[in-house]
């Protein structure tokens, strides 16, 4: 018995000593940087990036941080850079290669842009580029294609910039782009959502996309990362793809990409020599990795945590972005089918306070964020006006007759079920739910909050009254896709039963609108109509953030979250 006890004690002592020793260890002493890596055994779940779909939030899963610092390449990239504390880096040699450790919440299992949402990883890492892209005003900008025109209502002709080569060395011409898009059409089931393809015609540098139907949004849809221009003739498209971007892949294993500068980049100097790009799915883990020096740059930090980085050691870049916190209202349910109730609810929620205290975003006027060029300022939204909400309910005859504080409709208490995704990564959806619950109780509407792991099932089955959502409402810089998908009465994705013939007719007009101005005007009108009908609750915009170490320069959060690593990002010590 005594021997056992002594042995136990010795063991515990050894362990604590070892732990202490590990804490005090200087980075120089560590043979490999692995010791600092927060290596965890949690299964690296596959984020299929379904989260990125127009209707869903970039869900950060709770998987543990993956090892981010150890890679064979790094022996050449001076390990201090990745593991040392700031004061130790001052002694670094001047001609040290500029290496960046970056992480996002998704990387994926393949680098084939045509698979699922993997194109997003390619545009975010600067490997792939699309023919046209979106600038920070969410407007079209030339990229691999330098000009475009509509030949007729069905055919869009794009001119591929001359003198660009793929990372493989092959020149980029219309035929190569055609091959690439054909691969995308075969591989990705979303392809028909973007282009109703009849054929591609390649002629030198001119690519003509011919559509079966009138489809003017096709031009904007080409900004979707699915349409990354890649050399599909390379040997291993899944692991060593060849794009046209500022960085090319040197190696790829699941969720970890090693990149190096593309010295032949068509659009000027590239700011870094090498990049290690990894997936750290949990927002909190990214925060800690940035603090420990494991990462130099990351995106999507919870807005409360931003203040940890607002000092001279870090750069913080926050924009309001293209996402909106939407609370879907199910018009097919017994209570929310009444427009008056929906309007009253819209007046009863205090968006300003939610924005300032919960999400860090700006209060939403309509489904589109103010960053889009749809003249959002002149849209009439819902202000916080409890009296008005009460007035609307009273006028509609929805009053509390039994004195329990909850109003009734047809003798039944207004009881609404609010589904929110079980807290993963960010607690915001749950907090918004609780804030709305408290606000609605003030006007005599009872809300019950339910958490669900699998929101898509709940949504698809239409089982909710409210459900929280985080939507990119202008996924391709154009309003048609989201409006059609979510609100057209005949759309398969319209699960909330919104049905307004006037709205359907308005959406129809998109198909004849070929100029940006015309399309913006229709989107504007549609947004106003959705507001008038109180279609959903548009709560606040979702701020998007890029945080980097002070020595990383030009790491700016773009408005559109297709992009992250740009040629301008560099390291200056």
């Amino acid at each position, binding site marked *: 018995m005594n021997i056992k006890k002594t042995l136990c004690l010795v063991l515990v002592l050894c362990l604590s000593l070892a732990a202490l020793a590990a804490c005090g260890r200087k980075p120089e002493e560590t043979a490999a940087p692995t010791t600092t890596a927060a290596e965890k055994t949690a299964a690296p779940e596959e984020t299929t990036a379904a989260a990125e779909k127009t209707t869903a939030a970039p869900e950060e899963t709770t998987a543990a941080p993956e090892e981010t610092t150890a890679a064979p390449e790094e022996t050449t990239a001076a390990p201090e850079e990745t593991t040392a504390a700031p004061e130790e880096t001052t002694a670094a040699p001047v001609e040290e290669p500029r290496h960046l450790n970056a992480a996002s919440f998704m990387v994926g299992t393949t680098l084939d842009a045509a698979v699922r949402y993997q194109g997003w990883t390619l545009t975010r890492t600067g490997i792939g580029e699309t023919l046209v892209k979106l600038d920070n005003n969410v407007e079209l900008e030339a990229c691999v294609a330098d000009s475009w025109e509509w030949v007729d209502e069905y055919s869009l002709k794009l001119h591929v910039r001359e003198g660009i080569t793929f990372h493989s060395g092959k020149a980029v011409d219309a035929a190569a782009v055609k091959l690439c898009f054909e691969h995308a059409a075969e591989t990705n089931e979303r392809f028909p959502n973007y282009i109703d393809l009849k054929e591609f015609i390649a002629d030198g540098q001119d690519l003509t996309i011919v559509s079966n139907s009138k489809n003017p949004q096709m031009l904007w849809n080409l900004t979707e990362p699915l349409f990354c221009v890649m050399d599909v003739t390379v040997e291993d498209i899944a692991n060593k793809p060849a794009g046209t971007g500022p960085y090319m892949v040197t190696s790829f294993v699941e969720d970890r990409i090693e990149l190096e500068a593309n010295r032949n980049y068509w659009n000027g100097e590239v700011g870094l020599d090498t990049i290690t790009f990894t997936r750290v799915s949990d927002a909190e883990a990214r*925060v800690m990795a940035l603090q420990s020096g494991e990462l130099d740059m990351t995106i999507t930090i919870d807005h409360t*945590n931003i203040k940890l980085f607002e000092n001279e050691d870090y750069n913080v870049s926050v924009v309001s972005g293209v996402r909106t916190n939407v609370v879907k209202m199910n018009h097919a349910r017994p209570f929310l089918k009444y427009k008056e109730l929906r309007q009253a609810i819209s007046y009863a929620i205090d968006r300003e306070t939610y924005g300032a*205290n919960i999400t860090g975003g700006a209060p939403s006027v309509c489904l589109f964020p103010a960053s889009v060029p749809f003249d959002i300022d002149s849209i009439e939204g819902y202000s916080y006006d409890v009296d008005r909400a009460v007035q609307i309910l009273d006028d509609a005859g929805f009053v509390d007759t039994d004195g329990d504080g909850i109003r009734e409709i047809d003798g039944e208490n207004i009881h609404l079920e609010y589904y929110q995704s*079980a807290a993963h990564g960010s*607690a915001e959806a749950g907090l918004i*739910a609780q804030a709305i619950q408290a606000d609605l109780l003030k006007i005599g509407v009872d809300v019950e909050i*339910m*958490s669900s792991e*699998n929101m898509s099932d709940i949504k698809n089955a239409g089982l909710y009254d409210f459900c929280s959502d985080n939507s990119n409402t202008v996924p391709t810089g154009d309003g048609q896709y989201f409006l059609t998908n979510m609100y057209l009465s005949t759309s398969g994705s319209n699960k909330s039963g919104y049905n307004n013939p006037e709205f359907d007719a308005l959406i129809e007009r998109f198909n004849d609108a070929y100029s940006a101005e015309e399309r913006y005007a229709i989107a504007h009108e549609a947004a106003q109509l959705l507001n008038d009908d109180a279609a959903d609750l548009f709560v606040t915009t979702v701020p998007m953030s890029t945080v980097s170490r002070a020595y990383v320069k030009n790491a700016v959060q773009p408005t559109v979250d297709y992009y992250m690593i740009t040629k301008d990002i560099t390291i200056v010590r």
Partner: protein
Amino acid sequence: MAKLKQAPAGGEIRLKRGLQRGTVIRIKFYAILTIAILFVLFAMNAEHFAPYDPIANDYACSLQPPSAEHICGTDKLGRDVYSRILCGAGGSFSMAFVMLIFVSTIGTTIGMLCGYFGGRFDVIMMRFVDVLLAFPDTVFAIAVAGMLGPGVLNAVIALGLLSWTSFARMARSLTASVREKDFIAQARFNGASTPRIILKYIFPNVAPQIIVMATMRIGGTILSLSSLSFLGLASQPPAPEWGVMVSESKAYMQTAPWMMIYPGLALVLTVVIFNLLGDSLRDVMDTKKQ
């Protein structure tokens, strides 16, 4: 307890040998029992002690660190963490308590029937129990709670589906050993009916161990329920449940650590109290020797 005296075990010998030790154990037990009872009374009447409304949002004092007004700080919506912890205690405890009573009743009944009758019924039941025991219980509970949908009742059902098995096992083996004792044969000889034998002669010999086991399970069950709440499968916001609170605090681990520390501490304390209670109850009943 009076019925215990019927047990022919060497109770008197034990008493003589360990009087000193027995007294110490008993004092320890009563001390812990007092703490536990105080805890339960406190938890059941938490609303009277809580300085604030646990679910009232007050954005003006969002994320305030512990201070004189809010001794455990406030959370993101400005709710007082201390009040939420207090009010969360009652829910956690009573759910665990109700569940254990239910589960131990079912488990004991099945176990005693199996142990007493034996035969085919026993074999089938015990193989079924074996199958259930093969499931990792937390994973099973997550799966079941996920299927049933979120809610405290569903979480309790999910946990209960597996936890009756250990009670059944225990009751069965105890019954099987008691069944062979002479006083049972005597009772049968005197013409006692089967229900009477089971209830009057076997049950009193099984009950103490079951009670000890159930008591020892309280802490673990509270913890399991909180885990399910943490995952969003049991208590739903804005209920002031400890698991929910820890889950909500995850994003503020660095900016507002008090949101995580205090509910965590409360959880640890509760589990420790009930585990100690279970341990000392076992010592008092000295079930080890039976």
